[in-house]
Each structure stands twice: as structure tokens, then as C-alpha cells.
């Protein structure tokens, strides 16, 4: 649900259609805060990875999107589910580790694409992944093309 000024939102994640809404919301929220094209693309890609994990591994859940105040505007995205949780977080973050048939790049890759990354998860108690990104202050010349 996006109001005209809508950065804040809580979106369900229960189908691959919901992943599309999540990506669209994060894209427009980041654009609204003045994020550059590369910043937007990185954040939307990270959100897509995390939302898919919520859906596939967590059995569905939600994403909360909230603006962050600071020296420059930022966004906080929180992905949560009541799924099986992650027993070994270090292993889950390792590039190439997957418990399914993925590439195992989603979690570790998403961490590289954002500024702040934290996981709260225990076996049987679900998983919450929170990321934050701030808009860069400098002009971004290489984004023209």
C-alpha cells in the first residue's frame, strides 16, 4: 500500500507476486529519498534476496519499511517470519552455502549490498533480518549511463 508520500509500509510476503510488490515498494521509497540509481539497484536487489528467503525458507512473513533520520536520509527494511529459524548463522552467511537448491549467495550477498545488517534467529523461533542503507552525500558521476 503506497500513499503518495509513502516510505513507511508493511508488506506481506506470501507469494512470488508479493516479491514483486516488495521490490517495487523499496524502489519507489529509495527513489523518493533521493537515492541514486546504483544505490536503488543495490537495495532492491538485497531486498529481493531477503524477501525470497522469507518466502522460501521462512514459509512466508512480512517486510517493514521505515525511513531513518540522520545526516543523510536512510531506509530500514525488516524481514520477519515465524519459520524454522537459522541454526548456524555463520554457515548460512557463507557464500555458496544453501540448504535448498539455490546458489547460496542471497544472505551473504545482501549483507555486502547494504550498510547495516543484522539477523535475529533461533531454531524454532523464526528469523528477522534487518538492514539499513543511507543515501550517499557525494554526487555520483558514474550513474549517468
Amino acid at each position, binding site marked *: 500500500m503506497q500513499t503518495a508520500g509513502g516510505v513507511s509500509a508493511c508488506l506481506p510476503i506470501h507469494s512470488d507476486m508479493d516479491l514483486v510488490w516488495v521490490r517495487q515498494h523499496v*524502489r519507489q521509497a529509495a527513489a523518493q529519498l533521493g537515492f541514486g540509481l546504483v544505490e536503488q539497484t543495490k537495495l532492491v536487489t538485497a531486498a529481493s534476496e531477503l524477501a525470497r528467503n522469507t518466502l522460501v525458507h521462512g514459509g512466508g512473513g512480512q517486510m517493514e519499511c521505515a525511513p531513518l533520520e540522520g545526516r543523510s536520509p536512510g531506509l530500514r527494511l525488516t524481514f520477519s517470519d515465524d519459520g524454522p529459524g537459522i541454526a548456524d548463522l555463520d554457515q548460512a552467511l557463507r557464500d555458496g552455502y544453501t540448504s535448498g537448491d*539455490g546458489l547460496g549467495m542471497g544472505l551473504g550477498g545482501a549483507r555486502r549490498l547494504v550498510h547495516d545488517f543484522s539477523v535475529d534467529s533461533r531454531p524454532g523461533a523464526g528469523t528477522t533480518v534487518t538492514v539499513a542503507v543511507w543515501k550517499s552525500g557525494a554526487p555520483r558521476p558514474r550513474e549517468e549511463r
Partner: protein
Amino acid sequence: MTGSFPVPHGGHVPVLKLGDVLLVTLQGDLHDGTAEQLQQDISQAVADHGVTGVVLDISGVEIVDSFLGRVLAEIAAKAGLLAAQTVVAGMRPAVAITLVELGLTLPGLRTALSTEDAMRLLSAEAEQAPQAAKGAQGAQTWVPRSGRTCRESP
């Protein structure tokens, strides 16, 4: 020569046959289901029409995550089993930068700056080596881990 006609497919992804090449235009935000369907449709089309090349135009794609990256790699692998070469064309710079950071290694996925470049690459190869190993010669292999995307020289 370039008698193009639509090839049946599911979803909203235009697939055209141009001579010996299948041109597939991916656009906007694909559902996972659409992407998976596309994978099957392309294999089917390659088999049915005996094309020797597949060009995946992703210039209209705003993000490639690990799911779509894997779909692209699998399309290329399946086409390869059917003796067709796949080239991914027109990846946006922001997408390429993001993929490198994501750490997505898609060995064997070849890239070209534009669909025109991709078509030229495929037809040059077809002339050069009609039956010989259609391997990596002349083509760009995209290996982001080495810190090189091959798609642009600064």
C-alpha cells in the same frame, strides 16, 4: 532471411526467431514463475526450431538477483546442450555493479553490450567455426569474481 515470427511462450516475454537466432526480450520485473516458465519455453523453442544461438536482451531489466541470475545461467546451459550459444545482451551498468557486489559468479554466461553486438558475435562465430568447438573464442565470459565484468572498458 530474417523472417521473424513469434514463438509461442507463456507469460509476457517476447521471443522472436531471427534467422538462426532466438531473440528473447526480458522486461521489467519478472515473477519467479514467469522466469521459470521462460526457461522451459526457450529450451523447447531451441529444440523445435533448431536455432544455433539465443540472445537474452536484459536491457529492460532493473535488477538481477540470485534467482534470475540462476535462471539465465540455466537457460544458457540448456541451450548449450542443444548446441545453441547464449549471449546475455544489454545488462544495465547499475545491474552489473550490483551483481559483482552480490558475488554472483555465473561462469559461462557470455555478455554483449547490445543485442546488435550479440547478433554479430553469434553470426561471426557461426561462420568461423561451423562445427568446431563453439567454445569461448572471441566471446566474453563474465566472471565477476575476478573483478572484471568484461562488459565495458572504462
